[in-house]
């Protein structure tokens, strides 16, 4: 048995040798990624500094280098992966990339493309819904209202919470872009 066959015998090694067929490459997807603000990632030479630097990579299956490679090859299935949402956008990979590629920003772009494909995590829909409804991703609650009063602050902060017209402008702005339709409306059943 050859060394390769022996390695393939071990189930833990099998995933490493996942076969990717060129028929899976979607050049259109690669172009969309590039035109959405991640054009430079084609320069990635797969050194792996990103994966090695990723704090979340220690505890999650997120492999930044792999995400970037999948995007460059046009493997659209990257948009359906759970790991795409494990990045905390800490920016360590971006800061350490020897080619100064905007790695973190590329991941955020891919998340946006995932949303457009309908992969909308419930938490994202909820947060966007809150911003639409209140102007805040974290709206006030009764307990904090009371604490604000106790501290001598205004019961409501001088934000959209206090200015209904300002909130209306936020809502109109969100309706003027695609976000209302793609996320607020579609995400509604998941909002809790």
């Amino acid at each position, binding site marked *: 048995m050859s060394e390769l066959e022996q390695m393939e015998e071990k189930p833990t090694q099998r995933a490493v040798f996942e076969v990717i067929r060129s028929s899976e490459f979607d050049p259109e997807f690669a172009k969309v990624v590039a035109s959405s*603000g991640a054009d430079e990632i084609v320069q990635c030479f797969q050194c792996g500094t990103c994966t090695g630097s990723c*704090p*979340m990579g220690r*505890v*999650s299956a997120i492999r930044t280098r792999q995400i970037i490679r999948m995007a460059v090859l046009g493997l659209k299935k990257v948009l359906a992966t759970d790991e795409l*949402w*494990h*990045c*905390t*956008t*800490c*920016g*360590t990979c*971006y*800061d350490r990339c020897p080619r*100064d590629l*905007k790695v*973190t920003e590329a991941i*955020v772009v891919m*998340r*946006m493309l*995932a*949303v457009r494909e309908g992969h909308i*995590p419930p*938490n*994202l829909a*909820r*947060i*966007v819904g809150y*911003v639409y409804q209140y*102007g*805040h*991703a*974290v*709206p*006030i609650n009764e307990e*904090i209202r009371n*604490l*604000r009063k106790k*501290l*001598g*602050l205004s019961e409501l*902060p*001088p*934000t*959209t*919470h*206090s200015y209904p*017209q*300002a*909130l209306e*402008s*936020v809502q*109109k*702005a969100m309706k*003027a*872009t*695609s*976000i209302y339709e*793609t996320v607020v409306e579609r995400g509604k059943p998941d909002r809790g």
Partner: protein
Amino acid sequence: MPNRYPGIELATRIVMKNLGIELVDMEGASCCPAPGAFGPADLFTWRVLGARNLSIAEKKGVDVLTVCNGCYKTLYEVNQDLKSDPELRERVNEVLRPLGYEYNGTIRVRHIAEYLHRDYGVEKLRGAVKKPLEGIKVAVHYGCHLMRPKLRRELGDSERPHLLEDIIEATGAECVEYKDMMICCGAGGGVRSYDLALSLTLTHTKIKNATEAGADCMVNVCPFCHLQLDRGQAELKEQWGVYYGLPILHYSQLLGLAMGIPPKMLGFEAHYVPVDSFLEKLKGII
């Protein structure tokens, strides 16, 4: 910040007044909006809402000051993007103008930490401290978006910075080194709401390492990190059965204590981890 830790807001207002810096409210401002938790929904809308907030400050003719890394990232980077890309600015303004707002690129976005360090000055800050917090050991938590990405900031090295150490040591406290000091609190990028258990693994690493290094508290400059590090300890207790009880303070609160502001004005009752033991240590000082 105003909707979860109003004590940070009050501390900031008092501290800045004491330093002779006038703060002006941005009436009608919305969420920045959050870079990681909101941004991926649609980056263009993220910029539109960010620009709307910036235009409120522009109208008043003042720079924006944030006490939060997330707000800093959004507002700083949107400002940078729109200043450098007239076409994008026009597209954003096409949405804003009918609503009575316009972004013109006339102001700067500042974070309280870098403002105090670079403009106000560390020496002057030390001079404003009435009750030096001598003997207090602080674990520094930079969070991510103050220093990173370094190519989009002007704050220098993000691997071993000393910006926060400088302004913390100006209070008389001592900063302790701990393992993995520069890693994320775990909350960013929407991970806290996407997968709480996963986000808490990083929180645990930080809190454990800081505790083992002998820190009396951990100081941050971001209410979202603050939430993760503070409430996260309650969640770790509930879900993992581990509890460290390491008090978490925003820099404004630490500076407030060093300026002699009574603790009851710093909103500690909103904290999940009680700060009583920490205040006990300060007994002879404040």
